[in-house]
């Protein structure tokens, strides 16, 4: 016993686990002699438990890129988020471009890029961002799983307004997890997710917004740990992202490309 008076702050610190162990006996003795106070503190503890039970499930929800109740604002906001992400990722230029603050020609002049336009570069960035957001998600990596592949194909084809189908990558050791719909630059895009035996995840981002782009060969982009191979084929833009080596990713990208060619 220290003889110090027990304050209201001590009682709160006690239930919040912030009171030194050496003072616990003192508080316990205090409460033992005062049933009303003990009941009051018990109610406070219960509050904490209930608040956690009530709101902890939010932590396991998939992180929304778009909310159906506010599509416009969220599409716009998601693009801004992507743009700001890119500022962080690429150190400025491309992110600012997406932000609409720099004239594309000005940028091209100062930083020449291969033929093809900035939209294709944006495709790679958006795919990398989508990969970074969804591939670490343990509980909700996809909206529809591979066990309902038919439903996934029907739904995404309908939403994108054109038949699309996830390539089969089993021979390369990658199995389909499922897919989801995401907001692109002006409309919906699809993301398919795969994993290998080691749990390494791979995403294929499919956009149908590339009407302004002339066909282009494979291109490669690096976003921190995420490597991206991307290419344009007619109105389709494809971007394959994973945190694997460039050579491995190139091998998969080639297989994806060949399969998509055959299916057309």
């Amino acid at each position, binding site marked *: 016993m220290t003889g110090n008076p*027990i304050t209201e702050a001590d009682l709160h610190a006690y239930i919040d686990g912030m009171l030194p162990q050496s003072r616990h006996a003192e508080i316990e003795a205090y409460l033992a002699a005062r049933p009303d106070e003990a009941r009051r503190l018990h*109610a406070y503890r219960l*509050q904490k438990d209930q608040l956690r039970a009530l709101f*902890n499930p939010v932590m396991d929800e998939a992180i929304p890129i778009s*909310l159906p109740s506010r599509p416009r604002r*969220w599409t716009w906001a998601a693009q801004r988020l992507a743009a*700001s992400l890119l500022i*962080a990722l690429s150190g400025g230029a491309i992110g600012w471009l997406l932000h609409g603050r720099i004239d594309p020609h000005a940028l091209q002049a100062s930083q020449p890029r291969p033929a093809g336009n900035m939209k294709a570069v944006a495709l790679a960035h958006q795919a990398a961002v989508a990969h970074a957001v969804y591939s670490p998600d343990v509980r909700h990596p996809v909206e529809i799983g591979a066990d309902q592949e038919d439903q996934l194909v029907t739904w995404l084809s309908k939403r994108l307004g054109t038949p699309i189908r996830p390539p089969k990558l089993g021979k390369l050791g990658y199995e389909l997890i499922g897919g989801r719909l995401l907001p692109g630059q002006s409309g919906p895009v699809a993301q398919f997710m795969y994993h290998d035996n080691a749990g390494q995840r791979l995403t294929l981002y499919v956009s149908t917004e590339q009407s302004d782009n002339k066909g282009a060969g494979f291109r490669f982009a690096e*976003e*921190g740990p995420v490597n991206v191979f991307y290419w344009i084929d007619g109105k389709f833009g494809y971007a394959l992202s994973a945190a694997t080596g460039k050579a491995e990713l190139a091998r998969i990208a080639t297989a994806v490309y060949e399969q998509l060619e055959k299916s057309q």
Partner: protein
Amino acid sequence: MDDDSIQLIACIPRLRRYARALAGNRAEADDLVQDTMERGWSKLASWRRGGDMRAWLFGIMHNLYVDQARKARIPTEALDENMPRPSTHAGQADPLEMRDMEAALRLLPAEQRETLLLVALEEMTYEEIADAMDVPVGTVMSRLSRGRERLRALMQGRSVSSTLKVVK
């Protein structure tokens, strides 16, 4: 992606949980997270490395929430201690329902709700909360004490004024 960005993204689930508890509805909560992230990204360069990213982000969210509450249609600050109890709660001995907890939480003044949630959900220390909300620790303590007692009263379906004890 650099470490700062990864840290920032890693905070999203926590920010969403807190925002949901704070704002009450999903759309508002997600807007709050969105605004916080945008501000976070744009200020990331000025973030003091080695500092506590979580506390920094929660501070940003707190400021946005306060700004928003100030502009809100419902003057949450104007509620006084003698406000009527929720009529839906009759029996005092009823087991406490989760939904009641959510409703009761809505009836707390914003600063008490924030303090309570940072303690319960984030398990922040009183000093960290004082930092994030930019108030003295003593203020955090009185908000916590009032908030808890008020919530208890609401859950029991009685008015809080007669039973509020601040200091023993």
